[in-house]
């Protein structure tokens, strides 16, 4: 019953998303397009990285970043509001469904939002950088990135004791990852010590995989594996957190 129960949870979030569809699509494009204009066209004009224009280099990074922020917020903010503001999460906890079905359902809306936002930005980016290659490996990476960060959002929302905690999480975890996760620069340009530290960030591995897939380079399978490890860790953490809620 995992799939039907998770879909039931997702269904409610999809109904709510459908109600604000045009507004969502417009607002979701603002940040990545601004990054593209500021870093791709502004700062990076004329920069060449090993035969690749900076614009081509940065677009996959911005897609990874978009996938991260919209997935985390799409699942986390939604769950935080359900738990602490609408107080409707308890109703789901009292329904006769398994906890992992419930958490998957809550994460799926983040994944859906992440994929929609990333694909919407991709369409805009393809007009500017048509050499971006979107193949099955790129889509696989995007799917895993969105799912992984959705569970990070679910975990953060379950641990948060207030709405402010989500803001603190965004400032302490997401913001540093935005600028340090291999999105806007190549890891080969940073000192070795910092480079290894940056490998601890899941966004670094999402950026590396999506960039390699988009630019038709050899794929960093280790990064995909690390992303999957993060996915399992975030999902396991969320399960522990939701179980602890009933103590």
């Amino acid at each position, binding site marked *: 019953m995992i799939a039907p129960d998770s879909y039931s*949870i997702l269904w409610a979030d999809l109904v709510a998303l459908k109600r604000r569809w045009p507004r969502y699509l417009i607002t979701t494009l603002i940040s990545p397009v601004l990054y593209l204009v500021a870093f791709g066209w502004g700062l990076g004009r004329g920069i060449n990285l090993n035969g690749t224009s900076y614009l081509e280099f940065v677009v996959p990074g911005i897609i990874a970043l978009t996938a991260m922020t919209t997935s985390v917020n799409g699942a986390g903010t939604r769950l935080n509001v359900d738990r602490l503001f609408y107080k409707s999460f308890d109703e789901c906890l009292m329904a006769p469904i398994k906890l992992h079905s419930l958490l998957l359902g809550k994460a799926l809306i983040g994944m859906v939002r992440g994929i929609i936002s990333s694909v919407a930005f991709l369409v805009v980016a393809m007009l500017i950088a048509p050499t971006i290659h979107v193949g099955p490996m790129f889509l696989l990476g995007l799917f895993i990135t969105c799912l992984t960060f959705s569970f990070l959002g679910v975990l953060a929302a379950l641990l948060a004791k207030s709405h402010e905690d989500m803001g603190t999480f965004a400032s302490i975890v997401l913001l540093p990852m935005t600028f340090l996760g291999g999105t806007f620069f190549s890891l080969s340009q940073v000192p070795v010590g910092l480079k290894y530290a940056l490998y601890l960030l899941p966004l670094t591995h999402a950026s590396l995989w999506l960039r390699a897939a988009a630019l038709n380079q050899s794929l960093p399978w280790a990064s995909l594996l690390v992303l999957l490890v993060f996915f399992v860790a975030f999902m396991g953490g969320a399960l522990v957190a939701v179980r602890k809620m009933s103590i």
Partner: protein
Amino acid sequence: MIEISGLSKAYSGKKVVDGLSLSVDQGELFGFLGPNGAGKTTTIRILTTLTKPTSGRVLINGFDVVENTASVKAEFGIVQQHLSLNRDLTIAENLELHARLHHLTPDDRKKRIAELLDYVELTDHADYLVDDVSGGMKRRAMIARALIHRPKLLFLDEPTVGLDAQTRRKVWDLIRKMNNDGATVFLTTHYIEEAEALCRRAGIIHHGKLIALGQPLDLRKKIGMIAVEMQSNGNGTQYRYFPDRAKASEFIQGLPGTEKVVMRESNLEDVFIELTGQKVLGDQR
């Protein structure tokens, strides 16, 4: 239907429910009274599987709330104290979500939602977003949602809190109707008149302990059916209880005459005052 034995719950060593034991029969409308902070909501959270007890045992229709959570969850419906509807959805969509989570078939969902909207008189507001209807309608929508999977047991946690007198009476009618239709009702309230109007049996909880249990009339008989309130300057209101009006009148005649005196029938609030020395609404921790 509900068997509670030796139930305790402690947070950081402090007991909020302390050795609670009681049982509620099938078809009963049971009132669980006490001031805010007495342990009513914690008890309901344990009974509905949301919180694990520190010790003791609870059986819901024979299923243990800790060991058989999935079976327990299918047995009850709940109307929580706070508004817990999804405010991004309409009234009908909220019912639909709950019906899906309780595995009703698509045909049954459609039929049941229509039936229940009619039952709580919200058919005309089915497609309204939650925020676009009144507080009373929201409460009725929560009742409809609690009934969607035809539960045998209903937990109503302060179901009329924040409602005006007229809407409160509408909700009372609905509670009686649900009970008459066969549902066992476990009602928590700090409104004494609500418990007296609805419940055949009541338990009073104070500081996590059950301090009285029985039919409202029997509980009143224990302290005396007639209450005398004496308001004197500086000492607040004093209460005395008597088995009948004759004895109460005799007592009043013997008073010095400096006090404002009221004689009336006793109620469950008096039972609470007599047992704890404080008013139910006075303890707002």
